[in-house]
Structure formats: structure tokens, C-alpha cells
């Protein structure tokens, strides 16, 4: 079994490397788990059964809190979620209910796409930039750079989250707040 202490920094390192390759500056970062205290992720009101959305919310808010000192009022922040398989726990729960002829809980509908937790973060932190979900780390950071280059956003919250697939693995997530190389701010002219 691979240790949590190895997995989380590895995910964060991959995000940092992709950010650098995309020409982005990192304003703050976070991961899950970061310390031995990161046992079970805190549940998120309105999201049930799966740790997928709570995990994203936790690492995202860690990164956002750490970047607050650098943030400027009026900053437009995009959200880029990266996940290879998405919320497989919720998908499996829904599939099991459907196959057994059981009722699907209505809350499962509202968390059936990764956008929902992005909307939670956007509302709570007033992140008014685009919301995008993609499957690859490199694509996600290149996309963030494009959004910043084209003034769709001043900065981007980029989160990678992957639930454990097999026994012995753990859920893992990492987040960055990234800016353009010149830390653009609203109204800054740029060629």
C-alpha cells in the first residue's frame, strides 16, 4: 500500500509542474492529506454518501484561505476541476439503486456532476470566472492559462481530485490558485 504521505505531495507536485509548464505563477497551494490529522474529510451540507465533493471543497478552501492575503477586490477567479473518473462513489450508488429498482435520493441528482461543488465554492467565495471540468492535469493548467490570457479570469482555482479506485488506495486531492506571469489585475491593459 502506498502511504498517504507519498500520494498527496505527488499530486501537488504534478499540479505545480503543469502550472510551470503552462507559464503560470502559483499564489497558494494545498493538498489532501497534508498531515496525519487529515483522516476523514469533513462532510459538506447537501452532498451525501460520497467524499468526492467534500474532498474538493476542503482542498480548494485551504488554497483559497492561503491566497487571501494576495487577493485584490474585484479579482475574477475561474474554477478548473480536474478528475479522471469523477465521482465514482455516487455513480456506483445510483447504479446500484437503479439496478435494484430502488428510489434514487433526490440529493444524488444535485451532486451528479462535478459542477455542483464548483458552484458551492463559487457562491461561498464569490468566484465569478468560468467553471470548467476536465480529465487531465496538463489540459487543466493549459486551460487555466488560456482563461487568464484572454481575460476570462484574473486567476484560477485549479483542483485535482481522485477517489480511491481499489482497496488500499486513498482519496487524494490537490489545489492551486494560479495567476498569469505578470499577476494581471482587472483593467490592466495587456497586448
Amino acid at each position, binding site marked *: 500500500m502506498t502511504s498517504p504521505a507519498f500520494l498527496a505531495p505527488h499530486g501537488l507536485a504534478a499540479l505545480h509542474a503543469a502550472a510551470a509548464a503552462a507559464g503560470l505563477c502559483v499564489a497558494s497551494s494545498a493538498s489532501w492529506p497534508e498531515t496525519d490529522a487529515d483522516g476523514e474529510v469533513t462532510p459538506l451540507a447537501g452532498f451525501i454518501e460520497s467524499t468526492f465533493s467534500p474532498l474538493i471543497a476542503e482542498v480548494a478552501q485551504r488554497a483559497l484561505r492561503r491566497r487571501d492575503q494576495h487577493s485584490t477586490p474585484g479579482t475574477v477567479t475561474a474554477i478548473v476541476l480536474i478528475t479522471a473518473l469523477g465521482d465514482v462513489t455516487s455513480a456506483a450508488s445510483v*447504479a446500484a439503486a437503479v439496478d435494484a429498482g430502488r428510489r434514487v435520493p433526490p440529493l444524488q441528482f444535485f451532486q*451528479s456532476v462535478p459542477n455542483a461543488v464548483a458552484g458551492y465554492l463559487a457562491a461561498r467565495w464569490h468566484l465569478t470566472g468560468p467553471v470548467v471540468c476536465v480529465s487531465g492535469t496538463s489540459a487543466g493548467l493549459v486551460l487555466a492559462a488560456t482563461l487568464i490570457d484572454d481575460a476570462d479570469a484574473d486567476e484560477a482555482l485549479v483542483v485535482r481530485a481522485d477517489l480511491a479506485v481499489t482497496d488500499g488506495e486513498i482519496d487524494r486531492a490537490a489545489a492551486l490558485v494560479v495567476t498569469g506571469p505578470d499577476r494581471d489585475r482587472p483593467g490592466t491593459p*495587456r497586448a
Partner: protein
Amino acid sequence: MTDAAAVATPPAARRGSGSVVVTGAAAASAYGRGTRALLAGVQSGVPAFAPVSRFDVSARRVGVAAAMSGSPDLRAEVTRTVGEACDDAGLSSAERARSPLFLAIHGNPAIARAPEADRPALGPEALAASVADGCGLPGEEIRCYTSACVAASTAIADAAALIARGRADRVVVAGGYLVERDQFALFDAGRVLADDGRVRPFSAGRRGLLLGDGVGALVIESQESARARRAPPLARLAGWGRSGDAYHPCQPDPEGRGMARAVTAALQRAGLAPADLGYINAHGSGTGQSDPSETGALRLALGDAAATVPVSSTKSLHGQCLEASGVLELIVTLLAARTGLLPVNAGFLGADERCQLNLVLGEGLAATPQFAMSLNAAFGGANTALVIGLP
């Protein structure tokens, strides 16, 4: 607020200087395979909704969708459609091999039922790689978009942004969703499906959305690339905009401020005034909250032009195609504008004072707009606006 200037607070949208064109399109929907079937279907004004026979719906509140006959396979349908779009664009094998695939797709229902160790091989990237391989597209630079109902429109905007900045010459953008039992059960549980079996966007008495099969693909490239290989553009991808509401995990901003910013950004990139738009293919989900929000967005972003530009939501005809919506609806927009008959906003029962727009009602509207816009919105408050210009 109805002043268009009131939403122009974000920084002006930027873009690269290159012109972006569409040179190939292909689609499949409940109206059948091919863009001709899609165009004929939406221009007929007859909705494609029918009782679902693909899987058991006896335990559901609603049992209606716009589905192709039988049980088509998503991988096969996307592969066929991408191949047809490449053929439509006249791409050679060598040109295909340099055209990366951006694919908008929902999670594969098979993942949820597969042994855990087998799940990675069933993810979106595996499906995209299979499609790319089947169509002669490169295995590198594949992107998969899973942003719900703005997945495909976001992929189109990304492709346009990259091409405009000269970072790509050509991208094949595709989206696919086929009505299946898990999403159907979820939407039914969420009580958002129309229990009267019709989608009635912007209408009094609207009762929700209905799902629909949708597969679409576009070849998007730089004008220089198209010229160099003497490929006639179907349309120019003139502008694109994206935004977030920052309002709620799944409900739209009631005032439509987020979508208004996307519309404004798309017009800025296209260099257009609101009155230049000759048609809007609305998101128009037919739900209680979304339609007034979208109306508010159009009033904010377009000002007085919101009362005059023709608007229809073709979800009233082909249904809600989830991740594929953006590409299927842009294809509808493009084909309708080119052929001079704007699709009707079907299912309309009467005016809702919160949805006062110049809807295309009764039958299609004969018009040849030079510029048209396609709008999409999704959970998470995600919004997109795409503007095409006819060559």
C-alpha cells in the same frame, strides 16, 4: 436593470488576432443520423419526444425522452459522427493526424457497474482515445470535458481561443450523450422532467425539461489553415464567452448576471453590438427558474435588442442532450442560419411576463441572420455564449 452597460464591469475580453472558422459538422439525434436529419427535424417544428423503450421507466414519474430508435452505442455513435465531421471538412489522413480531439462526455455508466480495478479503463479519456484512434486523430493532446451542460460549448470556446492565438491550427470538438437509465433516474428523482411530456421554454405552464440523444462534432480551424487546403468555411466562430454565477451549486442567478457577462464577452470578442445578432439559440431548458434567469441575462447584456432579436430554444424539439448540448445546438444554429429558416420555440402555451423575449412561435421564421448566438448554462452556475458569423 435593463441597461447593457450595467454588466460591462469585468475587464474587456481579450482574444488572439486569428480568425477561426468551422469547416466540418456532423450530428446524430432523435431525428436520425446526419445533419440533414437534424435540420429537417428542427425545421419541421415537430418535437421528437416519445415514450422511452430503451430501458424500464415504469418506476419513474416521467417516461418520455427524445431518443433514437434502439440502443445505440455511445462510442460507436461518437466515432461515426467525428469521422463524418472530418469527411465534411475534407480532411486528409495527414490532416486528421494533426487535429487533436476535444470530447465532451458524461461519465460512462459502465464505470459504476465495473469491478473497481477495471474502472480506469472505462473513463472519458479511454473513450476519447478510442474515438481518436478510430478516426485517425492523434492520441496526444486529447481533452475530455465533463462540465455538464456547458461541456461541449466550453470545449468549442477553448478550441477557438487556442486557434485565435495561433496555439493550434485545427481542433475537432465533439460531444455525446445518449439517454440511459442512470441519468434518467437522477433527473426523475430531481423532479425536473416535464410530466406533461413536452418542453415549453419561456412559456407559461412550462413543467421542466426532457432528455434527448445528442451527438455532434465540429472541425474548427484557423482561417489560414482552411484557406491553405481550399476548404470552404461553413461559418466563422466569431466570438465566445464564459462565466460563473457565483450564486448557488445548482440554481441559476435569478437576475442572470453571470450569463450576461458571458454574452457580453462573446460580443466583445466578435466585435459586435447587440443589434447585430440575428438569432439566439437559447439555453431555454424549460424549467421554472432557468428561463427567467436567461431572460434577465439577455436583457442585461443586450439592452433594447433583447426585445427584437429572434430567440428559440431547440431543446423543445430535440431535448436536453447534457454534455453534448453545446455542440448539437451550435450545429442547429449554424445550419438554420445558413438555410434561412430559424427553428420554432415549440410547446409554447402562453406568455410568462418573466420571459419577455421575441420568441419564434407557431412556425419557423424565414430569416438569414449574418450573426447568431448559442447559449448554454449548467449546474455550478456555469455559462457559455458562442457567436457564429456566416461567411
